């Protein structure tokens, strides 16, 4: 069976959930055929609002719908929600604590063909500092769909970060997701790889490679970058003594930053961060080679694990 993309799984789950929950309304900023909120729009045209190329306005309209008791899912490209609409998100969503769900599509490098203007490699850092915000990054298509009802039924602002692409499948249908609860995908005692989003599948591949070298790597999926599952991370630090973080995001301010903050408040251990260096990226012909080119290859995780092990006392 061909893998479906994260956006398609999300789009189908949203349309299906629309049947169950009549309070869900959906907005888009002229990208519904990209974010695939169009599936919901086709089924519920009266509950879908296309605001045009005006992301800040879309967020404000969503705020009004939330004030009126609706559960708005506001869809747009991650780069635009987290930058152009950021003031709306801070003031009217987070500070005013309105029940708005920001669905940030085309995240990371997944819009490979449109280039750095469209890549979203700073967004986790932008939204993670917002008080009241919950930040969720699914690892694969199946998980993306699972979040729809959970996000809708949670009371408060959410940033759900979705890839345009089909990432490496990690989960099966028995998966149950809970906000703030990390998932141990592989046990191991030598080092812990903490990953989010598309880098979870790559981290599992890295762990297999490391096993062949006799290195026993634990793999944690942290889908909720905020609030962070600090207990699970500190336990891994204590038990394995070395940590690698992996994310399709700048190495500044994202998952790696969040993990470092949580460790320095407890008992720090050596930490290596796999992510995009502090730089802008480029256009490519496919997302996989683009990720590989910017430091997100499986081999980058493997070598980060070797480095952190060398630092482990």
């Amino acid at each position: 069976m061909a893998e479906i993309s994260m956006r398609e799984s999300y789009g189908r789950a949203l349309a299906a959930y629309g049947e169950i929950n009549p309070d869900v309304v959906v907005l888009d900023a002229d990208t519904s055929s990209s974010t695939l909120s169009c599936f919901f729009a086709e089924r519920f045209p009266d509950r879908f609002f296309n605001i045009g190329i005006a992301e800040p306005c879309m967020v404000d309209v969503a705020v009004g719908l939330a004030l009126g008791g609706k559960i708005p899912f506001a869809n747009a490209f991650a780069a635009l929600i987290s930058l152009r609409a950021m003031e709306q998100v801070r003031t009217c969503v987070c500070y005013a604590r309105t029940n708005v769900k920001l669905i940030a599509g085309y995240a990371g490098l997944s819009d490979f063909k449109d280039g750095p203007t469209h890549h979203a490699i700073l967004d986790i850092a932008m939204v993670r500092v917002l008080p009241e915000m919950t930040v969720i990054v699914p690892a694969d298509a199946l998980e993306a769909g699972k979040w729809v009802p959970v996000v809708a039924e949670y009371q408060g602002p959410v940033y759900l970060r979705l890839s345009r692409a089909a990432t490496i499948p990690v989960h099966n249908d028995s998966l149950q997701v809970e906000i703030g609860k990390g998932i141990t995908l592989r046990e191991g005692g030598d080092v812990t790889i903490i990953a989010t989003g598309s880098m979870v599948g790559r981290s599992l591949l890295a762990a297999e490679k490391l096993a062949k070298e006799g290195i026993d790597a634990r793999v944690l999926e942290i889908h909720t970058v905020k609030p962070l599952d600090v207990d699970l991370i500190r336990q891994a630090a204590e038990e394995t003594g070395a940590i690698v973080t992996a994310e399709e995001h700048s190495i500044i301010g994202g998952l790696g930053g969040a993990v470092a903050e949580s460790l320095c408040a407890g008992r720090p251990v050596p930490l290596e961060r796999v992510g995009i260096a502090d730089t802008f990226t480029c256009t490519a012909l496919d997302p996989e080679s683009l990720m590989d080119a910017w430091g997100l290859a499986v081999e980058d995780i493997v070598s980060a694990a070797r480095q952190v092990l060398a630092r482990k006392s």
Partner: protein
Amino acid sequence: MSYHPEALIAELEERARELRIACLDMIYRRGAGHPGGSLSAAEIIAALFFHKLRLDPKRPDWPERDRFILSKGHASAILYAALARLGFFPMEDLKHWGELSCHLQGHPDRLKTPGVEMTTGILGHGLAIGTGLALAARLNGLNYRVYVLLGDGECQAGVVWEGAMVAAKYRLAKLTAIVDYNGVQLDGPVHEIMPLEPLVGKWRAFNWAVLEINGHNMRQVLEALDTAAEIHDRPTVIVAHTTKGKGVSFMENDSRWHGIPPNDAQYAQAIAELRGGA
């Protein structure tokens, strides 16, 4: 044209005068606030809160209530003065505006102050948020109206016009915007900082119904609010020509009074002028 009895006009004019005195008192006491844009909105606020809006101060979350968003959130003093008089919170609280333990923030905060529909202060948000509230009313089958009070300087923000397009697209007839067109902003006259004219033409071009009034003439304010409620195919904007700092001679039309409090002598003179109008 609607008819409003003289007694109602006189009562609301007196309310407007009372609100002006109250907000100057609050700004003087706190040593901070925005007198100019509070004074210019007094008739509009009085007409809405003491006559037009369907509100129940005992139930600030009554689903059927009309919604008012003070998009020009810096005029918070006059909103607070009105809400306290209606009983949303004790009048005593007005004396503690801005204190650490007081719910009354520099700008309105929906989570802290009963009766505040939406947190505002950063200019430009109110109209688009109002469109969302009007869309929710339509989906929920509720009959409330949504009123958004905008500053004129605020209309320089692009997102205001994005919201205007949304309201027109969805023909949100239960949404009424009011522009407090006092012609003065923080740095100087609006026509020098960034001209808005033709403002009426702009709103018309955005497919809104436009009513143009003297925003200090209570009869015109009331008639415009009534007329807006009778337009059923599009949203209405009331462009209300006002005077910044209205009622206090030395504050009128002077941008220096956008956001500073009066000193002792200025306060005494301002109150005397406002009381003298009785």
